[in-house]
């Protein structure tokens, strides 16, 4: 396996088909997005990372922003994402992607900046970085691939691992008494006024994959609208870490994982979906006056409650 990226400048527009010189052949129903390199990936059979890469590639291509997009990588099985997605990219230390992306975006606010992070990366070692990037409302998009496990290091328990789930570091099953409860990061983040968009998708079957793609598309749109941080959590598989076949792992996503982590839209502030926690905003708030009573920017003061996805 070689890690060399393809050479040659990025063809930013797909050549037109069906010209008089080259009459259209059969209708294309499946093709490799231009942004996806032809290089074989390092992912195991049945791994969800490849599907998520493809969705990102399709969305960026459709939006026509690939040539001004910067990928902020992370540490996990997708550490080589920059070999598969033909984008300018920077590597981050484990967990620090949201901070790295903050630095990129603050210096280049006119670029599209996104992180690609696993659940160990984002929900364990990188919790502070993601929470504060969200609190600051950084204009970045976060693609959060939750496979409920540390895939890269051999299938250890992650903060997202389900109660009772066996992993190499919870061999008897995750015991909530000593190993705590699964961490619903997207729900937590959706409480913050800095988060303009938050949704959870899943790659279990084509219909869900299509919905997930629409979420990713909307997340990038929100970044272009410059209203806050956007995050899409994608429930994904790790057949190797789960000790299952690819088919079994897809079935488990639907039968178990989606029960614990409901799929749907949590927040789309521009569309009035989701309510942020009333944030104690000081004198800078448009309403002025008493800090404690003032809701966050764009936050309705009433009906702030626990986040639940708006659609299933």
């Amino acid at each position, binding site marked *: 396996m070689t*890690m060399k*990226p393809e*050479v*040659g*400048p*990025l063809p*930013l527009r797909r050549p037109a088909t069906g010209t008089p010189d080259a009459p259209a052949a059969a209708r294309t129903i499946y093709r490799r997005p231009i942004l996806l390199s032809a290089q074989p990936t390092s992912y195991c059979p049945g791994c969800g990372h490849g599907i998520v890469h493809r969705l990102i590639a399709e969305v960026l291509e459709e939006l026509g922003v*690939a*040539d*001004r*997009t*910067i990928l*902020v*990588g992370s540490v996990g099985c997708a*550490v080589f994402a*920059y070999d598969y997605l*033909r*984008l*300018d*990219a*920077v*590597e*981050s*230390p484990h967990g*620090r992607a949201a*901070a*790295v*992306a*903050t*630095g*990129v*975006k*603050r*210096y*280049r606010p006119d*670029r*599209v900046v996104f992180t690609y992070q696993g659940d160990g990366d984002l929900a364990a070692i990188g919790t*502070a*970085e993601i*929470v*504060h990037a969200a609190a*600051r409302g950084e204009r970045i998009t976060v693609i959060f691939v939750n496979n409920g496990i540390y895939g890269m290091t051999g299938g250890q328990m992650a903060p997202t691992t389900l109660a009772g789930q066996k992993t190499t570091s919870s061999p008897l099953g995750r015991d909530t008494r000593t190993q705590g409860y699964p961490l619903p990061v997207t729900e937590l983040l959706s409480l913050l006024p800095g988060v303009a968009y938050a949704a959870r998708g899943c790659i279990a079957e084509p219909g869900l994959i299509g919905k997930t793609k629409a979420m990713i598309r909307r997340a990038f749109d929100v970044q272009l609208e410059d209203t806050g941080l956007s995050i899409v959590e994608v429930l994904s598989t790790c057949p190797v870490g789960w000790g299952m076949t690819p088919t079994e792992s897809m079935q488990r996503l639907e039968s178990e994982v989606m029960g614990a982590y409901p799929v749907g839209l949590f927040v789309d502030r521009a569309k009035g979906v989701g309510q942020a926690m009333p944030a104690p905003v000081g004198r800078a708030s448009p309403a002025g006056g008493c800090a404690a009573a003032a809701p966050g920017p764009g936050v309705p003061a009433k009906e702030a409650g626990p986040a639940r996805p708006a659609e299933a």
Partner: protein
Amino acid sequence: MAVLDRPAGAGRPHVVASPPGTGVEAPLPDRVLMKGNEAIAEAAIAAGCDAYFGYPITPQAELLEWMARRMPEEGRAFVQAESELAAINMALGAAAAGARVLVSSSSPGISLMAEGMSYMAGSRLPVVLVNVMRGGPGLGSIGASQADYLQATKGHGHGDYRVPVLAPSSIAEAIELVGDAFVLAERYRTPVMILADGILGQAMEPVVPRFRSIPKPTADWILEGAAGRDPRVVRSLHIRPDELEEANEVLQATYAEITAKERRWAGESLDGAEVVVVAYGTAARVARTAVERAREDGLRAGLFRPITLWPFPAPALREAAAGARAVLAVELSAGQLVEDVRLAIEGTVPVFHHGRTGGMVPSPDEVVAAMRKAWAVTPGKAPTRPGTVTPETAPGGVR
């Protein structure tokens, strides 16, 4: 000496308005009083720093505060991060995107930044870091210290890498070195550290308010979106051992070039010095006074002040000490600089150490006493007085 008409923390002392309509530039005040932390910050802004990231910690906080006001004024990026861990990684991202970046902290915060420094070295990112050292280990004290010498010159993060370390011993010199640090960082694509201490950061000194602007070189590796060219990747990961070794060889070749070309030091009264004092930063200020007093008392003493701590100016020190009878390292630490001094001297001259820790600063007289002791217990190349010498009978006698 002119003094600022506003509190030093409140204005932009280097900007002086021309009298309207005259077309003549108003003369700059000869000198203004500035705190070290503020002078470093303003020097970075003048140099063309595009982005600053930091986290409050004493005795560095004024640097962050100055940037909090001045960077937005200049339309540049400023973020008070949630931790030093986040600050250094914001710096990493901004540098990868082509920004000229400054980050500052003090000892405990630098420990948290160690991970990012290793990644920045591996990714070959130019970033200037300021460590305004305080007492350690642990939470230690907020007093001035030089106890991070080994961390700065040999350590911080993991892996085979080095970071050039510049050590100013006055606020005026700190201003100069900020510009030099950006030049070095960009010339060699490496993080560069300015190693200051709590006294340099907190004290006010008169400085000439002329700050240098540094031209920014073009770079063919920065990330801005792959428009009309191959995508670029900024990374430290080279999973194949042969590729990582190759990348490490590039780093090592860079360090060899830096060592060959960029060592810096200053010498005072070194001609014919019998005792060569080696000190940097605030310790060098004390040592200078001590050397003057010792010379008044008849002890031929000189000061060797390394300005680059890495690369250490070892050949120059060896030469300066060649005719001496003793070398004395003076530092605000239990003995860190002295290790490099010994390595430089290679046993040719006896090396002594005098250090205070925890935020304590030696007095000049204390250093004079240490010099006399070093003189007394060493035989010397050509004894200057007959008989047995003791600290009391060494030149100068007991003060």
